[in-house]
């Protein structure tokens, strides 16, 4: 059987690692290539770079980061942030990424998912989704780093994303992101049960047991965290040991 994946995410701006808390109050720490190599050593199953650079020049810097990382880290690399076109996907994969993650742009232009999957294969296309609960109890999809509510129902969107050929969904809860109270299990379970492509849990991991809980209470395929690993509150290895002790299959 496939092992459940533990994925550290590195938020990168202008070639340096940062981490936003609820997408605000960003503080800078470290070199992304070094961080990725460290996570690789800890047993990360995959590494995600999320590029929060706004400028066009910054994209070139990000591609250099990917190129350098691909020379030293031999687990799958995913790159998200700022990917708007098929050409962006192509140059990111050519730099050494194994997958790209598209988020806001996929909401604005869903055809990007289909074009990307048709040309490069579904396995290359991960769709990142930021969602938040509404007062009536469903969830809606946000774009631009969780700033703009598109009013699109989350379940409608995940089903559309699957139909368009996405290989995977990375589901981030705006409600739990940065709060460190655990993953948003109700939202996660609802999405996992609605699609048949892998779902990565994101947003909210704050302590060791949160990862195993997500795997025990939902059929998510992977769990992602950023600051928790980045500030060395936990290592990937500690999380895996905890999962293994609870009977969850991990590498």
């Amino acid at each position, binding site marked *: *059987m*496939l*092992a459940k*994946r533990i994925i550290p995410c590195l938020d990168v701006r202008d070639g340096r690692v940062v981490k936003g808390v609820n997408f605000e109050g960003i503080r800078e720490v470290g070199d992304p290539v070094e961080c990725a190599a460290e996570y*690789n050593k800890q*047993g990360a*199953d995959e590494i995600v770079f999320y590029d929060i650079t706004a400028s066009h020049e910054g994209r070139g810097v990000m591609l250099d980061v990917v190129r350098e990382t*691909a*020379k*030293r880290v*031999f*687990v*799958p690399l995913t790159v998200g942030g700022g990917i708007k076109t098929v050409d962006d996907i192509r140059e990111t*994969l*050519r730099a*050494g990424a*194994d997958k790209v993650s598209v988020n806001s742009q996929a909401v604005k232009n869903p055809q990007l998912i289909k074009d990307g999957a048709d040309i490069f*294969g*579904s*396995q290359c296309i991960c769709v990142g989704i930021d969602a938040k609960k509404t007062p009536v109890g469903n969830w809606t999809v946000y774009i631009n780093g969780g700033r703009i509510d598109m009013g699109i129902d989350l379940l409608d969107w995940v089903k559309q994303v699957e139909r368009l050929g996405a*290989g*995977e969904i990375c589901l981030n809860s705006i409600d739990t992101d940065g709060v460190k109270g655990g993953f948003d299990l109700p939202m996660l379970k609802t999405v996992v049960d609605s699609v*048949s*492509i*892998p779902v990565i849990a994101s947003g909210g991991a704050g302590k060791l047991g949160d990862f195993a809980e997500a795997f025990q209470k939902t059929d998510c*395929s992977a769990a992602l965290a950023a600051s928790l690993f980045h500030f060395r509150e936990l290592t990937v290895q500690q999380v895996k040991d905890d999962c293994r002790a609870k009977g969850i299959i991990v*590498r």
Partner: protein
Amino acid sequence: MIAIVDYGAGNIFSVKNALDYLGLDSKLTDSADEIRAADEVILPGVGAFPAAMKMLESKGLIPVLKTEAQKKPLLGICLGMQMLLEKSYEFEECSGLGLIPGTVERIDAPGLIIPHMGWNKLEMGIACPLLQNLPAEAYVYFVHSYAARHCETSLAAWVEYGGQIPAMVYDGGNVYGAQFHPEKSGEVGLQILRNFGGLV
């Protein structure tokens, strides 16, 4: 020198990066002469079987690979492994290199996600030099929707995913095939590539 066959498909740079990291001399090439001159050959590949075979054919590499496989170690990776087999049913029936007995068919795993994507644990079959010095629990990284079938006599390793999925095939001589990506399989994958580099 290891020739990495560059026939215009797949992410071959990651294979090159891994060999560079291990200090193994390698070269991306689509030249028959360079493949003949190499000590070992790697046939990588991501994409669809018929298109990849057509590209090999258009570059005149099919007879070269068949001949060189009699003389030196050849490792097919992912689609490159599938092309070592006799034929595939991806989109249409299409002949492979026929270096390993068997066929390539869509994974039939009811209720399971296709592609088979992620880390899975190797279960060992026939003895294979590339699978030496691995940890007891060796996980490797897969991304594929089609899998080898009817290759029991060459089955060096398999994984469990709605049944047995062949992970490594070996003809007992020079020809090796890895369905997984050793270049993306962490330390285990690097050890497998190190073993391959150590064959000559």
